[in-house]
């Protein structure tokens, strides 16, 4: 049975697409046939993060409207043959995503795939609601920052009241918190919300903590999901995150500030 996972946040720019790319690649590398869908109609970006922007011929909306078959629109990743990308439309109106249309595409994908990752657009409008509506699990991406935490709480409210599971009295969407752009050194200085603070406010179980890392920008520059940068802290943190998603119990890393040398401690930096 396929699992539908939405990657959502409310706020923009917190790392939804970075996370969708990394998690879907991680699941595929672990041997699970995975498809990642870009729900950001009109502003597609998953394709450029996954380095397949020049291979897009048909898109999600073409499939919903019957202009192309699913197989014509799916792009097979060149690095991992278990991973497929369904790009968003760049031109059409976002109302092209209908509940019935999305459900039909998801049902078709369920036949073939173990994991369906839905990369949500920012906001709480139609596109974001469609991305989360059919989800079994949700990864709520949150930065340690007041507006992001507040918006995450709004999205949790929508998951609990306006998802298919909520509307049909089924077991609720399984919610997971992913903290990104975390900087333990600033937490020690009292300049950043701690992991415990965010968990306390949102009351959602913690799936992972991705440290603020230069590797993320490098990865997007190259169109390589950061999880493939195995030497980087962010890449390793995403590997742990995927392992936990698959039921592995791993301790959280990169949550403590690195010890500074004597000179650094005296002179700062």
């Amino acid at each position, binding site marked *: 049975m396929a699992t539908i996972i939405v990657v959502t946040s409310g706020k923009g720019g917190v790392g939804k697409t970075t996370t969708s790319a990394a998690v879907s690649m991680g699941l595929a590398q672990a041997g699970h046939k995975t498809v990642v869908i870009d729900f950001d109609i009109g502003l597609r970006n998953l394709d450029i993060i996954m380095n397949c922007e020049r291979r897009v011929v048909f898109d999600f909306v073409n499939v919903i409207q019957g202009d192309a078959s699913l197989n014509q629109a799916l792009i097979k990743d060149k690095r991992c043959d278990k991973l497929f990308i369904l790009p968003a439309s760049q031109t059409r109106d976002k109302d092209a995503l209908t509940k019935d249309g999305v459900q039909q595409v998801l049902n078709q994908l369920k036949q073939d795939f173990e994991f369906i990752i839905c990369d949500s657009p920012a906001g709480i409008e139609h596109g974001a609601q469609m991305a989360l509506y059919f989800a079994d699990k949700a990864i709520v991406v949150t930065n340690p*920052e*007041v507006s992001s*935490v*507040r918006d995450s*709480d*709004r999205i949790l*409210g929508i998951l609990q*009241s306006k998802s298919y599971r909520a509307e049909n009295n089924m077991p609720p969407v399984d919610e997971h918190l992913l903290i990104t752009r975390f900087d333990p050194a600033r*937490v020690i*200085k*009292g*300049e*950043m*919300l*701690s992991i415990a*603070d965010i968990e*306390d*406010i*949102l009351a959602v179980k913690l799936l992972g903590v991705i440290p603020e890392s230069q590797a993320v920008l490098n990865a997007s520059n190259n169109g390589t999901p950061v999880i493939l940068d195995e030497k980087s802290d962010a890449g390793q943190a995403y590997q742990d995150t995927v392992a936990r998603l698959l039921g592995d119990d791993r301790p959280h890393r990169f949550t403590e500030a690195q010890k500074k040398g004597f000179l650094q*401690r*005296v*002179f*700062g*930096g």
Partner: protein
Amino acid sequence: MSIFELFSRNKEERSANVAKERLQVIVAHERRARNAPSYLPAMQNEILAVIRKYVEIDNDQLQVDLNDDGNCSVLEVNVNLPK
């Protein structure tokens, strides 16, 4: 903390604590509003209109909260009257 920070450090409260307190207040408020019955905003406006028949108060001087205690719901109405 470096030597430089030791001297330049001001006594302001750590901003992370401020952030946490502000978030706890607003998130709790928004959760109550989210779970509140749909008639609550209209009722709040009517209560406000009744008070204004007698005393002129601003919108933010009236707070209406519905708290669910499990067995019963408690409607909490707080009105700040000007002196």
